[in-house]
């Protein structure tokens, strides 16, 4: 149980998982349903329960097409795709993973890059 993480994910997604009435319409509509180990409706339900560990390990987050069909059709104003996106971001941002090392940066730098991009990239990935 990781409530803090669940809170962060909820905030990032801007969705209130408690509004979900467990109808499963999101999973009924999802075009990638069969490829997902954790289904869209389960994302919402696990966030509501604060069980984020399973989500962070899930392969589903890399299968979601962000087609937003689940968001469009949800009768309760819940956005499963936004939750998936937030989990994806959380995984990317976890310290020690996927970060950009300062010494590796120069080889990618294009002189045309605005400085701001570099600064924000460091902020985002090099905690």
């Amino acid at each position: 149980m990781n409530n803090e993480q669940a809170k962060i994910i909820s905030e990032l997604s801007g969705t209130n998982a408690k509004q979900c009435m467990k109808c499963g319409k999101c999973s009924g509509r999802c075009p990638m349903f069969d490829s997902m180990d954790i289904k869209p409706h389960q994302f919402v339900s696990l966030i509501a329960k604060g069980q984020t560990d399973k989500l962070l390990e899930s392969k589903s987050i890399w299968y979601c097409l962000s087609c937003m069909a689940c968001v469009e059709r949800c009768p309760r104003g819940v956005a499963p795709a936004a939750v998936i996106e937030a989990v994806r971001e959380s995984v990317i941002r976890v310290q020690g993973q996927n970060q950009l090392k300062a010494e590796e940066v120069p080889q990618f730098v294009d002189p045309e890059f605005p400085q701001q991009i570099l600064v924000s990239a460091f902020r985002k990935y090099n905690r």
Partner: protein
Amino acid sequence: MQRIGVFVCWCGSNIAATVDVKRVAETLGQEPGVVYSADYQYMCSENGQQLIKTAIKEHGLTGIVVCSCSPRMHEATFRKTAESAGLNPYMVEIANIREQVSWIHKDIEEATVKAIILGRTAIAKLLLNTPLTAGETGVTKRALVIGGGIAGIQTALDIAEAGYEVDIVEQRPTIGGRMAQLDKTFPTLDCAACILTPKMVDCAQNEKIDILSYSEVEEVKGFVGNFTVKIRKKARYIDEKKCTGCGICMSVCPSKKGLNEFNMNLNNRPAAYIPFAQAIPNVAVIDPEQCIKLKTGKCGLCSMKCEAKAIDYTQQDSFVERNYGAIVVATGFKIADLKYFNEYGYADNKDVITSLELERLMNAAGPTKGTLLRPSDNTHPHVITFIQCVGSRDISGCGKPYCSKICCMYTAKHAMLIREKYPDTEVHVFYIDVRTPGKNYDEFYRRAVEQYDVDYIKGMVGKVYNENGKLMVQGSDLLSNEQITIASDLVVLAAAIEPEPSVRKIATLLTTSIDTNNFLTEAHAKLRPVESPTAGIFLSGMCQGPKDIPETVSQASACAAKVIGLLAKDKLKCNPCVSISDDSMCIGCGTCANVCPYGAITYVDKEFRLGGGKTEVRRVASVNEAVCQGCGACTVACPSGAIDLKGFTTKQIMAEVEAVCKR
């Protein structure tokens, strides 16, 4: 000089936990004019009231302030208490220290100070109160029921049974409403028409009941006990008195393209028609949009064939004006629009239908004579999928936030009837929750599952699409955690219900309140469920909220009981807190009459003495105290300050404001 008593209620711990009641009583006891103050655990209890009565007598009180809950709760109680101790009931003021203080504050010091201020405010007002006497008005012993569905019919029958006259105004050409369209009724599966039409006939034959069909309420004036209502009788182009309902006009009418509303537009009807065989009144009507004679002037076939000579193409809308003591709203419901739900393909596929359309397809008097054939090709559907909660419990903005209540039961009914009549049919039901509270309801639903083998799938449908003539219903099966697709021949949507749209106009005419979903608001959700907050207006059936037939009939009878209670009175006590105009200050400008929502103000020419034997005639405002509801709009609008509201005079309000501001 007044002698005021202050009574501070603890309301158990409701007030006493947050407000120092002893300190409130002591501090207010020091106020000028106050000769007695006390606190008590429950002021509204028998003992609490006795305390007030004793104090009034022993201390010779001329007015009392009760610091307690909202005046909406117990003002009437304490007025009665005061009256029984010989005080004028309008010498009672309530300081609301529960809803406005203890329930919303946490800090005891802050709450206590505020309670003292509110108490002081009430004292300031009471010092300027004068005893008021309520007048009386008569009651017109006749009721109006707006809407002729099962709710309106039951209410009208019950009122008539008690011996009072009732008029039913129905906007459609016949009474019967939605129930007349249904095939069978749950949970007993008796046919809707078999139980409804005898009641319709009772209405027609009851000499106390007058049915004004194809009519609408146009204007409402007056107040409880004395309403005057103008009713528009829409032109039928047929003389109701002459028409025998033989139906010859229907068979000869060459215009057959009108959509049959009674059959949910599933087939067509002629321009001259009787909605259904058992219609009451059994009188035809001509649809001016479809009638060739009315549109082009050429035709007149029905007129030539009509033996009763009932056809009258020149008929115009006519108006009747009648007086009523009480008005019942029974406007009913309709199926909500599905335009925001294109995932179910309702607009694109003829074989995606609503449950009400299915009722007509299964009804022996319907377009298929009761044989279940799908609309696109008139073949028998072998796989039927039901989808529940279409547009209900939806807070996305596309649907309705409420549960429509009846869908779980009628879907179980449809599924069962289909499996009974056509055992070779596969029936699937997608559900979110199955809600079947009610006598014999859950047993009914379980029968559908256990005896009739209906396949209930926990999950919602994501989309319906057409593939090679099959309707592919894709949804989730949450219990097996799968996404499934069912190739179906017919898809039935349990669409949300919503109040009949005309109720908005009616609520405005009646100055009664309506909620965000267009359901009419009751006076009290639990304790006064069939009365509206506007005196003399009552609610019956679906206009107040979703409900099934048994519940509608119970509510309709409850509503009738309330109406009978009102009509049985010979006199009604009026509210004495009404407007009064000071002739010497009135300039006759007409502003107050313009803002008065009740039409209570008229103008009269009055003769005034100028002195020296001279007189002058001036136009001044005159308030009909029986009509005035004491809203106070006129007092605000009056430019010369001539109009004042008894019990809430400008002086009293200003004294209250000063008391609030004083530190």
